[in-house]
Every structure is written in structure tokens, then in C-alpha cells.
């Protein structure tokens, strides 16, 4: 449920680092907690995002949540398919449900993220 090769935030985003790029989405836990996702608002390509600051919103039938950038940098790709098929986030949060690709500005920021094991321990603790 929490792939080992990804890094995580305590706000329930995951990030896959490929060279100097970071692909971003939300975790299995987040999609399960939200329930049916019906609306996603993402930034445009070219916009700059800052680590741990909001880059967009995600809405399920019942709830509205902010999305937080795991790293700072420029948005170089956006998953436009989510506009018409936001349910991809529920069905495949680590694959077709990806949201952004960010060009990493400062690789040192990756040290602020947590591992799969740490994330799992964190959400178990939250559930208590």
C-alpha cells in the first residue's frame, strides 16, 4: 500500500524522484479517507510551488482538502486527465492518479520527507 521507493509527507502526498524531477500524488490512505474524489484543482505548468505549501485542492463528495507540495520547484507537467476523471485518484493513487511533475529546485529538501516505513507508522499513530 505504501511503495518503498517513494517518499512521503505527513499531509499524505507521495513523491517519486526521477533524476531532478519529482512526480507527486496522494497516498492510498488519503484517497481512502477522502472517499470518492469528484473534483481536483491543480496549478498550471510553469507555476512555482513551495515545499509544504498548498498547490491545489481535492474534493470528495463530502470533503474539501488542500494539497501540499512535497518539494519546491517549477511545475513541468500536470495530469490533465484528472479534470474529467478525478476517480483515477481513488483507483490508482500511485499510477494514473498522479498529479504533478515538479522540477526539483533544492534536492536537500528531500531530507524533510519521510520513508514508507515512517509514513506507515505515522498514519497508524494518527488512527489511534
Amino acid at each position, binding site marked *: 500500500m505504501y511503495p518503498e521507493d517513494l517518499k512521503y509527507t505527513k499531509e499524505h502526498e507521495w513523491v517519486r524522484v526521477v533524476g531532478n524531477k519529482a512526480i507527486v500524488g496522494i497516498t492510498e490512505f488519503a484517497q481512502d479517507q477522502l*472517499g*470518492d474524489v*469528484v*473534483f481536483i*484543482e491543480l496549478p498550471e505548468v510553469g507555476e512555482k510551488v513551495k515545499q509544504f505549501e498548498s498547490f491545489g*485542492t481535492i*474534493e*470528495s*463528495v*463530502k470533503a*474539501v482538502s488542500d494539497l501540499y507540495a512535497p518539494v519546491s520547484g517549477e511545475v513541468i507537467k500536470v495530469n490533465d486527465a484528472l*479534470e474529467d476523471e478525478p476517480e483515477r485518484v481513488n483507483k490508482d493513487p500511485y499510477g494514473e492518479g498522479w498529479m504533478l511533475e515538479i522540477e526539483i529546485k533544492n534536492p536537500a529538501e528531500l531530507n524533510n520527507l519521510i520513508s514508507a516505513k515512517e509514513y506507515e507508522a505515522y498514519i497508524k499513530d494518527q488512527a489511534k
Partner: protein
Amino acid sequence: MKKTPLNQIHKTLGAKMIDFAGWEMPVQYTGIIEEHLITRTKAGLFDISHMGEILFEGPGALQAVQYLTTNQAAKLVPGQVQYSALLYPTGTFVDDITVYKFSEEQFMFCVNAVNTDKDYAWIQENISSKKPDFAPVQIKNISDEIALLALQGPKAAEILQKLTEIDLSTLKSFRFTEGTVGEVKTWISRTGYTGEDGFELYIPAEEANPEVHQGKVIEVWNKLLEVGQEYGLKPVGLGARDTLRLEARLVLYGNDITDQTTPLEADLEWIVKYDKGNFIGREALLKQKEQGIQKKLVGFEMIERGIARPHYKILKGQELIGEVTSGTYAPYLDKNIGLGYVKIEYSEIGTELDILIRDKKVKAKIVPTPFYKRKK
């Protein structure tokens, strides 16, 4: 937190539980959209045991009901149900309710869970002490002794018919009767809160032992699911109950109607019968009717991308003209819809307005309601 007799069953079924008005209730089992669509196309089973029930017994029962409520209860026949409201003297809502007439001297209110204690106190305050001239009436809060299930959807009647001796083809909308479901004695009411045909099944505790009652409630729940399986019946949580009621433009107390709004503003004047004699709130409503309302509850549909949520501001140009009271993605219509109060001069159907979503104006327009109406 309070628990219904089915609490453990919901957890076993994998429901996500939430705190609703102090009750631990299932918000969803498999997903709100799926549960919503199943109720529209097949049938859904809901545990709504958190709802409150208040009983009126005695020669003064009708008199008390008439004084407390807005609708004409004198015309009801035994076995009839009526949508009605309790108002403050200001004409604003204490609650919206359904009134059940069992006999000339026995009536029952079914009230919102969030309001049960408030309503009971309000009723006692206004009947017991202030009305010594009323014929005697005993008023009891029997909410803890009653479980309530709702079976809703186009297949509801076929499913229920397999478990009851009552000929459901003779039980019309807004009628109820005593009958058994399986072996269990219930009040079968052809009512609901989804916009579909369906039933609400009251299961009263006949014994003092709550475990016996719980066993009966579980039996009815399980039997319905078992018999309903071939029709596609599934348990449905409060999440879909909310989206279903909104598509059908059924108002929700706390959102669309409150102690700050009146039946005239909420477009519910059809449940106000001024000529039935005195009732609490009558004077204020007559005055408001004469002066004209300033705001009105309207239904709107989003034109641009975005979902309106309660308390979002409604604008016309730069002018603040109102506030959203309910808003959601509507699964059956596949649209984003909502209800909100707007200034009366902007309440015409077809009016375009803006909903302020996270500081951004998003276009919407006023549309006729209900958003969804079932084919008969």
C-alpha cells in the same frame, strides 16, 4: 457516543463510522457514489435509528399537535403521515418533522436526531405549563425505544413484499400501517428522504430488555439484505442519504432551514395552513407574508467547474446576495448542485450568479427544483 442496535453490524460490513449529532453512524460502506446510484436504480437499506420519536397520547393530542405544528393535522386519518414544521413565535424553524396519526388520541412526531432533545423540551414547555386550558395529553420522548430502517429505491416494494403480509400495493405514499417484517412487528410507513419510492420501518421495543429489541432489529436488517440480494439491495450510509435528499430538494435542518429562516423563505409555504386556527409562529408568518420576504431558498447548478459548499458566499457582480446552505456533486445527475438563500430580487429561475469558492468567482445559475424527480 450513542449507538444504534446495528452499530456492530455496520462495522462488520466495513462501514466508515462518523459522529453525527452525538451518534456513531455509518457514513458509507463501499462509497457514496455507488450507494447513491444503487438507491436510484435498485434499492438501498439505511439505518436511521438516530432519528427521534415523540408520542402524544390523550384527549388533547390533536389540540397539542395543531398548536405546535404548521400543517393541518385535523384532516389526517389514522394511518396517515404528514410533513410539517415546528416554529418559534418568530416564524423561524425549531425543526421540520413528520406527523403520524395512529388514532384520534394518539399522534407521533418523527424529528431530526440533532433536534430530539431540543424539540422535546420545546414541546413540553409549550404544552405542559402554558396550556392548562388544553385537554389532557401525555407527551413522551420514545426515541430510545424505537429503531428505524429505511428501504428506498425502485425495487423497495418488491423486496419488502417478500417479507410482509401487508399488501403493499394498497399502502399509498404518506400512509403507514402496523405489520410484520419477517416475524418482527413494525410500523411500515411509505415515506423517505431520497426522492425514491420506499419505506421507513419503525421497530418499537415491546420488551424492557434492549437485547431482545436489538436481536429483532438485526433480524429485520439481515432478512432484508438477504431477500434483497437478487434485486441488488445494498446498505447505504448517511453520505449518500445527504446527496440523495439534495438531488430531490428535500431540505436539511441545520443547513437549509434553521432558527434564522422561515417556511416562506424556504419555499415551504405549502406546509403552512393559516386557516386551521392558532399555532406557534402563525402571527409572524402572516406578517411576513404581508410585508413580503427578503430572501428565498433557491436551487442552483454550477456552470463552471467547482463545487459549492455550505456558507460559501453568493454574488451578483460585486454585490453579496446570499449564502450557500447545501452543495455537492450530484452523483445521479452528474452535475454540481446546491441550495442557498439569495435576495428575493435575484431569485428568478435562470438568473446567473457567482459562487465564491476559495476567493474565486465560479459561475452558477438558478434552476427549477427538484433537481431530480423520479419517473412514476
